[in-house]
């Protein structure tokens, strides 16, 4: 399939999203921000429509809208008397309403809404690829630079404050990271599925991780593999690329969850009264695990 240049570009752009979505997603999930990505994706759709309406390259307006929304969310959340998830619901529906209005205004213009909703990775041009790669590298660099700080505020924000970390500024950097990641990944899996690529590989990794570090590495690995397998599958089966990627990630999740539950059931049976004594001892002393 790599004899086609568009497939090479699709794969490269997809792999960027496959790396940065779970890398940011680990912190998103652990901080209970899972709906944040979804919200920003809906607002980004308004950015796409605004770009089409104003005749600006949509990637630029998308990024602008997502970052502005992230800033507003962070301000409202840290303010008093507003529930965090209510702020997200407000921004999500507000963003979608704005998107619908802007799309209706731009009637007659060539705007591929379906592509933005469900991804249009096969139409990634050389210019798009450079932008995606550049932003992806920037996101990854910031995560690596502030890895331990982001880990600390995810685990215990109060202790991080007492350690003298600039928690408010780090929180702001974090929501900007989410915004950029959403804007970058929209082309690959689409508005409606971008949060899936952030959340599902992380949930799978959490099932098997023995440490935060291994959770991070496993999540990124699963993201990359899901994109590679999903895009390959979509090419040979002629199915939607974004959906194929997310379904692949879901298959990994279901397999891991079933594997884990089977293993636990097996261990319970071995530990039950009447089980062979030798196996029991092995399990209790931990030789089996």
């Amino acid at each position, binding site marked *: 399939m790599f004899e086609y240049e568009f497939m090479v570009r699709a794969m490269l752009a997809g792999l960027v999203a496959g790396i940065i979505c779970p890398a940011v997603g680990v912190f998103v999930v652990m901080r209970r921000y899972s709906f944040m990505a979804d919200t920003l994706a809906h607002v980004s759709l308004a950015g796409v429509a605004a770009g089409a309406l104003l005749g600006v390259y949509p990637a630029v307006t998308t990024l602008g809208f997502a970052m502005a929304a992230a800033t507003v969310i962070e301000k409202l959340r840290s303010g008093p008397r507003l529930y965090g998830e209510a702020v997200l619901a407000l921004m999500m529906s507000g963003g979608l309403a704005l998107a619908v209005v802007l799309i209706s205004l731009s009637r007659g213009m060539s705007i591929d809404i379906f592509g933005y909703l469900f991804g249009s990775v096969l139409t990634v041009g050389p210019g798009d690829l450079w932008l995606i790669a550049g932003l992806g590298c920037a996101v990854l660099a910031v995560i690596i630079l502030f890895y331990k700080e982001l*880990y600390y505020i995810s685990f215990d924000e109060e202790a991080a404050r*007492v350690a*003298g970390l600039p928690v408010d500024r780090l929180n702001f950097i974090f929501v900007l990271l989410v915004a950029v990641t959403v804007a970058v990944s929209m082309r690959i899996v689409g508005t409606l599925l971008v949060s899936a690529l952030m959340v599902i590989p992380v949930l799978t990794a*959490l099932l098997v991780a023995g440490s*935060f570090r291994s959770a991070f590495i496993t999540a990124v690995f699963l993201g990359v593999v899901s994109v590679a397998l999903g895009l390959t599958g979509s090419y040979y089966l002629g199915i939607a690329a974004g959906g194929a990627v997310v379904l692949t990630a879901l298959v990994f999740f279901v397999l891991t969850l079933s594997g884990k539950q089977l293993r636990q059931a097996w261990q319970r049976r071995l530990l039950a009264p009447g089980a062979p004594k030798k196996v029991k001892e092995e399990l209790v002393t931990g030789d089996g695990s």
Partner: protein
Amino acid sequence: MSGPVAEIKEVSFSFGTRPVLENVSLKIEAGDFLLLIGPNGSGKTTLLKIMLGLIKPWQGRVCLFGRELGSFRDWYRVGYVSQKATGFDARFPATAEEVVLAGRIARSGLGRRLGAGDREAALEALRVVGMEDCRNALIGNLSGGQQQRVFIARALAGNPELLVLDEPSAGLDSRAMDSFYAMLGKLNQAGITVVTVSHDIGAVPGEVNRVACVNRRLVCHGSPARVLTPENLASLYGMPVSVISHRH
């Protein structure tokens, strides 16, 4: 060392219109093992949080190591174990060692990687609290007492001069509590100033050398023998209370 480790000057604070602290002043000297006691809702935790800059007081000032909180930057000199430490998200996929390593961040500085020296310090802190064998265990799989020790190791990993603990004995049985306070006593003898909060005055550990009673105001402050008199406690709790002092 010159001057007090921490100084709280005429601090007042309210949640909405409900006053929590009124004009509280407290000096903590180097080498103190201070126990803050008071009934539930008496403002002990709030006072601790004000001392650490987590809450801004409406009035008054706080100095740590002789510097106003606003300009204080040497946070590695302070170790903190929050009340939440026992109520954290048990599903968080961090090993005991990873939790303790975070305690080195205040020393390493923003954006710098933690090195072999930090790892060594984290292991040493785990050794001090007797948890080095569990260093690769997930924090959520440890018992309550073990988790508490890991969080203290995190506070110790940065080699602090002041250790602040909020209700550290919550969730511990009386035997675990005895060995826990014995450990704090050892740290105190090694030169660390310890400040801890408890609403349970049924047991004042023998290691404590200062007691401060807080109930919106600072009711009294001094050595345990001087402070824990029936009259003081009756005025603190509004009813007769007796104290059992634990000597080891």
